């Protein structure tokens, strides 16, 4: 046990081994990892077109509302109310 401590002390003195700079190294590594994760998420959001869907999916319904007053995509069966079959009951 004593000999091991002696060896460690020798190595520290001989090769100037200490823990100074460890925080800096770890900060750099963490920064690289975080930036990598950030860009991976960013790329994933771009590829999955999340922002486009935020606008385009409601837009399709809103365009149906603007076109014919029906909150539904006109291309997917949203019909103008004029096309509804109506019935009239005349008063006797």
């Amino acid at each position, binding site marked *: 046990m004593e000999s091991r401590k002696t060896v460690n002390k020798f190595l520290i003195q001989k090769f100037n081994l200490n823990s100074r700079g460890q*925080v*800096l190294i770890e*900060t750099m590594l963490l920064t690289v990892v975080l930036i990598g994760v*950030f860009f991976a998420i*960013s790329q994933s*959001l*771009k590829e999955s*077109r*999340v*922002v*486009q869907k*935020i*606008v*385009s999916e*409601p*837009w399709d319904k*809103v*365009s149906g509302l*603007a*076109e*014919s007053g029906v909150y539904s995509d*006109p291309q997917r069966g949203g*019909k*103008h109310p*004029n*096309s509804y*079959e109506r019935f009239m009951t005349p008063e006797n």
Partner: protein
Amino acid sequence: MKKTRATRSAGFTSVDFLFSMVLGSGLVLLLVALTSTLSIIQVAQYMAFSTARAHAAGHETLAQQKDLGTQKFKSFFDRSKNPVLSNLLSNEWFKIDSNSLDLRSGADGKDFNAEYGVDESKKALPNIGVRFQISAPVLEFKIPFVGSTARDQGYKSFITGFIFREPSSEECRLQMKARYDAIIRLDSRFGRIATESDVKPSSYMPMEDNGC
């Protein structure tokens, strides 16, 4: 613990603020674009209704009714007549083409029944009036880090104004003449009264309260 350059956190909030501001302002821009688009759509619906109303009102001929509708639509793009609207419709945020008016009057066999799935076998009233397209390039923009809202087909919508058109005087007279001729053909005596020389022309004059 004494803070070194590596462990100091001064400025961290500034970076965080800048980053969140970029994302936040992107989302705010999105909301502004959406709400302003809805407002312009409402204006465009007024234009459609106004145009359809001008087209629907009775006039001497069908061509003149169509002309009234077209003139009304074009007046929205005229800076001297509509300085506010014309500027709203001719910028890079919203676009309505002044030549995009699709006006179908029904009488010439053109209506919007096919476009809106009207089953003509059920004798529904024809969809007649006006339709035009509005596009909103304002909805196409990039938000940093998360992508663009643009899509291939763009953001377009049809605006419709369907108002049943009053018959023109010309159509009314033609219809009344056809009706009159049909009555005359009901009985040979009617025809003789109307056309033959044994009844003095001055003693018979058809007079119909037809409102033409």
